[in-house]
């Protein structure tokens, strides 16, 4: 589904571009959950932004193929319509735009781009109400402006509501576990697990092993200084937790 080959990327810095990803390769097949762990500054968030197509992140080499297409050639909204979802580490607040309006606009924009029929009001409401109930986010909160006045945990739940409604093929979740208490972590993990299916794949980007107790990955990759230095099964996360990143990277 996703083939990243020798990806090199830089971000704009005050003194010119700074190279962050230095030849990252990774293959994610449908049905798989991959976890990417790594210390601060390893390039985890850069990877997620490069996959989503954020401005300011320049790909200087390598390729990313998604479902057989060149992902890097697509605009951010086209990537979303093709089935890529980025769960943000810091979801943005948008005053004056309600969550419902935001999500309905997004869903219908994606469907239009795919040549599908737009969701009717009733169909949309049914989808959102079910997703909000599953994730324990009061429906009335969705009538308020996007993420405004939401706690850290509520923002992350809201990301999962969006994911459930948009039904992506590939979810890239950037530190979705940060800022969550244990109960919220369980609810959000359940949300991720519900999306697991043979047709979908998930890329979990995280600092901590904690999330991986709830969402058990098929593969764990260790990202250090812009490269994947080690790959293993779920047990690798425990090794990391015990020994730290420095021991692995050495």
């Amino acid at each position, binding site marked *: 589904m996703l083939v990243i080959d020798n990806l090199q990327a830089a971000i704009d810095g005050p003194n010119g571009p700074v190279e962050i990803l230095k030849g990252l390769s990774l293959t994610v097949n449908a049905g798989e959950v991959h976890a990417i762990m790594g210390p601060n500054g390893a390039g985890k968030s850069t990877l997620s932004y490069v996959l989503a197509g954020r401005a300011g992140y320049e790909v200087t080499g390598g390729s990313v193929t998604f479902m057989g297409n060149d992902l890097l050639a697509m605009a951010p909204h086209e990537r*979303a319509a093709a089935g890529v979802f980025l769960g943000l580490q810091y979801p*943005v607040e*948008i005053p004056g735009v309600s969550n419902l309006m*935001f999500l309905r606009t997004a869903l219908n924009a*994606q469907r239009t781009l795919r040549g599908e029929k737009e969701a009717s009001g009733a169909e949309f409401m049914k989808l959102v109400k079910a997703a909000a109930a599953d994730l324990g986010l009061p429906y009335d909160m969705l009538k308020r402006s996007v993420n405004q006045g939401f706690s850290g945990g509520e923002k992350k739940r809201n990301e999962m509501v969006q994911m459930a409604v948009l039904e992506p093929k590939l979810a890239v979740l950037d530190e979705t576990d940060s800022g969550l208490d244990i109960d919220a972590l369980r609810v959000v993990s359940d949300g991720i697990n519900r999306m697991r299916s043979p047709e979908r794949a998930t890329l979990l980007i995280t600092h901590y092993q904690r999330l991986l107790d709830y969402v058990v990955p098929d593969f764990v990759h260790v990202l250090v200084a812009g490269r994947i230095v080690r790959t293993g099964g779920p047990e690798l996360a425990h090794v990391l937790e015990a020994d730290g990143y420095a021991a692995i990277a050495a």
Partner: protein
Amino acid sequence: MTALPTRRDEAWRYSDLAALGEVWPQAVAAERGVTIAAGETGRLDELLSGNGWLNDRVVVSVGAGASLTGFIDQGRDADTVTTQLYDITLEAGAQAHIVIINHGGCFGRIALDVALKDGADFDLGGIIIGGDAQNLEIITTVRHLGPGATSRQVVRCVVGGRAVGSYLGKVAVARAGQKTDAAQSFKALLLARGATANAKPELEIFADDVKCAHGATVGELDKNALFYLESRGVPPVQAQALLTRAFLSDALAGIADDAAREAAEARVTALLEAAS
């Protein structure tokens, strides 16, 4: 106006005087009057269209305890010059809620001179939508002449191209205007590097027990919010329109009647779509 204004006139410092000079003095201000009797309710609907120079002075008198709802939509043809002045007097206990959408012509100026007597209430929601080389401005002078009067002006401006959007808002509190409560907010969004927004708040207070608040900001669209929308599948043009509409909606939030507010929002949405 008896003489062509110059840059030295504070109230005309950001105006397109070249455009005004071209039409000057072919058209003379027409004077019209609207009167709402004490205790009555009335409307002022100004759908400004057409070509040429429009330079009306509209005298609006709102009697004691009366209520006025106004809607001024300046959507005149390209290359037109508009210099409208609304002279509004609110007698004791009267109220007025006026919405302005200023978007047409090459130079469009809507000026309001509002006199508030005892306990009168004036509320303005102003919107400027400009592009190309348009120069659009809203000018308000709110005079708190009697005690206990209240006033609010919420003006939002979005300009692209090389357009200029200006808000000059003066609040003048007379010696008798004790317990005045006045608030003014202006925010502008620049959609292009060549666009300009001017804010000129002005307070002139001769009473000693008043509340007068004002604030002004000029900024760009939030890039994080734009990316957030795009990452969810919303094309850039639509994302920009959604954020711009949300930004402008502050100026319409004061419309109490749901149907009227929705109609105004729909009007703004249509104008933004036409501009993009």
